[in-house]
């Protein structure tokens, strides 16, 4: 196990810069997720840690070793690819033991470690099969087995669950998390799915356009997003955004939308400026004294009801624990506790 340190990492392809001075410290044994929309540079960053992509500037440290110029095989890392990248002409056992074979490890030791990894992943019965004879989930496990056998300092996962169907993805999510809890190997996990990142990671790096937007624990990112991008990226359904201004009303600071709708704000809100107000869908509550909203669509999921509604001129999503029986066009009244409202600067998007 080892920590991973990315210092002022830059990457450009000719005139196009794709990573702009990224600094990330990944602690020893930590499960770190890199998350962001497609093209934000998260996979490039992972491939740079792996040594599959050269860095233009900066330093990558694995443990106390600077690995900038080290070949991938010397970095003591293992990587699980999005498409598994299993060797089709090798059996499961050969796939898993290939790295040890290359390292000239004795066959006995090789077999022992392959068997141990297969045991952890429930692959013992499949060791003699070829990848084409396995299901998607089994292939995914073999890819992880290949990584485990190497006993690396760092596991790198490049969107390993994106090819699985929804049900299997949830199951594999739990398996990977369990595996990490068992092995405690430093893990860097790239995903574009924020739910995956939230549920699995100790900490998350949110990236956008080659820059780090925020680093923090899942709940830190959820509860105190540093900026509008993180606020709207993290959370599903995503945070509602209202444009307006902070005013000083008789009852203290309030947020006034362009159409005149007003939310109460905490006393600390800086009045007298234009801002963006963010409200998480589950922070709306049904309240007879609240603001009037027109129901556009109602989506019951059983455990909760998602309502798309129109608050003044703005469309918003609310998530209610109650089983609502409202029809489109009907009016409901909702309120938000002032302490649960997020405020962002309307120009920079930075949290106020």
């Amino acid at each position, binding site marked *: 196990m080892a920590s991973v340190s990315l210092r002022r990492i830059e990457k450009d392809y000719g005139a196009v810069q794709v990573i702009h001075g990224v600094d990330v410290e990944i602690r020893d044994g930590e499960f770190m997720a890199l998350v962001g929309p497609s093209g934000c540079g998260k996979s490039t960053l992972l491939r740079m840690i792996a040594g599959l992509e050269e860095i233009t500037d900066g330093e990558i440290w694995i443990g106390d070793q600077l690995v900038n110029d080290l070949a*991938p095989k010397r970095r003591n890392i293992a*990587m699980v690819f999005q498409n598994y990248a299993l060797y*089709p*002409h090798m059996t499961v056992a050969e796939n898993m033991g290939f790295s040890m074979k290359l*390292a000239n490890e004795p066959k006995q030791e090789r077999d022992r470690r392959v068997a141990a990894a297969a045991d952890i992943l429930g692959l013992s019965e499949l060791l003699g099969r070829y990848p084409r004879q396995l299901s998607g989930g089994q292939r995914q496990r073999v890819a992880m087995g*290949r990584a485990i056998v190497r006993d690396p300092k760092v596991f790198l996962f490049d969107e390993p669950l994106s090819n699985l169907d929804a049900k299997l993805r949830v199951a594999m999510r739990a398996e990977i998390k369990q595996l990490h809890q068992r092995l405690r190997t430093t893990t860097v996990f790239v995903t574009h799915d924020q739910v995956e990142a939230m549920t699995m990671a100790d900490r998350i790096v949110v990236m956008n356009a080659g820059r780090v937007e925020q680093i923090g624990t899942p709940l830190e990112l959820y509860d105190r997003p540093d900026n509008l991008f993180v606020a709207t990226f993290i959370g599903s359904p995503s945070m509602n955004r209202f444009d307006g201004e902070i005013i000083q009303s008789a009852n203290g600071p309030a947020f006034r939308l362009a159409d005149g709708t007003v939310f109460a704000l905490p006393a600390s809100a800086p009045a007298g400026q234009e801002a963006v107000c963010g409200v998480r869908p589950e922070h709306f509550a049904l309240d007879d004294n609240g603001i009037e909203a027109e129901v556009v669509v109602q989506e019951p999921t059983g455990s909760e009801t998602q309502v798309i509604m129109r608050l003044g001129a703005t469309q918003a999503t609310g998530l209610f624990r109650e089983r609502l029986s409202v029809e489109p066009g009907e009016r409901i009244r909702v309120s938000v506790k002032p302490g649960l409202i997020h405020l962002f600067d309307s120009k920079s998007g930075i949290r106020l």
Partner: protein
Amino acid sequence: MNSVRDASRPARRDSSRSGVAAETLVYYALYAVLALVVLFPLAWVLLGSFKNPGEIFAYPTTFFPRDFTLTNYNDVVRRTALPTYLYNTAIVTVFTLVFTLIIGTIAAYGFSRWNFPFKNTTMVTLLILQLIPSTVNIIPYYLMMNWMGLLNTRIALVLIYTATHIPFTIWIMKGYFDTLPRSLDEAAVIDGCSMFRVFWSIILPLSLPGLSAAGFLVFLGSWSEFLVPLVIANSREVAVMSVGLYSFFGMDTTAYHYAFAASVMSTAPVIVAYLFAQRYLVSGLASGAEK
């Protein structure tokens, strides 16, 4: 109203089914005619090789041999230089095959996996070179081989064949390598493979269909090339099969019975090579690498 419409449906289905059957019949008849056009000359040569010289030109003409004989084969092997021609052809073909595939696949892997200046220009140039007919090159070949002192040697043929077959081998193999996911190379690099080991242990075993296709075309090309060996290496000691066969056709007489037997013997290895290559000419070897 409904019942009328329902009653008409099965009839319409029947007529469309018989229409499809008739169409299929026409296609199969066409295939049969085409197969006959291709196979008839081959069958004529094969069956003729088992006839006596007199029967080949007998009237009325026989298709199947009246008196089945292996004498033509026996004579061709014992009384002509055919074994030497076969040996020369085999040597030249095997070396051409080995050199072409080694150079061609390594170059193709480079073209497939790395970007370098003028990569596309080089690929197009290779294609253009392939379009030049050997007739145009024959005098330069002769002069070069003469300058190197390689006229009337098998080495000359191997050199020329290898050079002429490398471009399309690169094109075929590059096309094949492009279909193999790069993540396989990357996984192997992380597992500890050197660049050559990735190629040897991962890429090459998965490329048997591509290698078979390219290998068979190289085999066919070098086995059946006529003009180059006729000009460059036509002495009896180094002559290859195609030139040897030509020698059966004399100014005054032609030993058709020998020519038929020799033709069959020279064609057989091509068929064997095809059957061998065909085992691997199936896609799907790389299945299971990805999702």
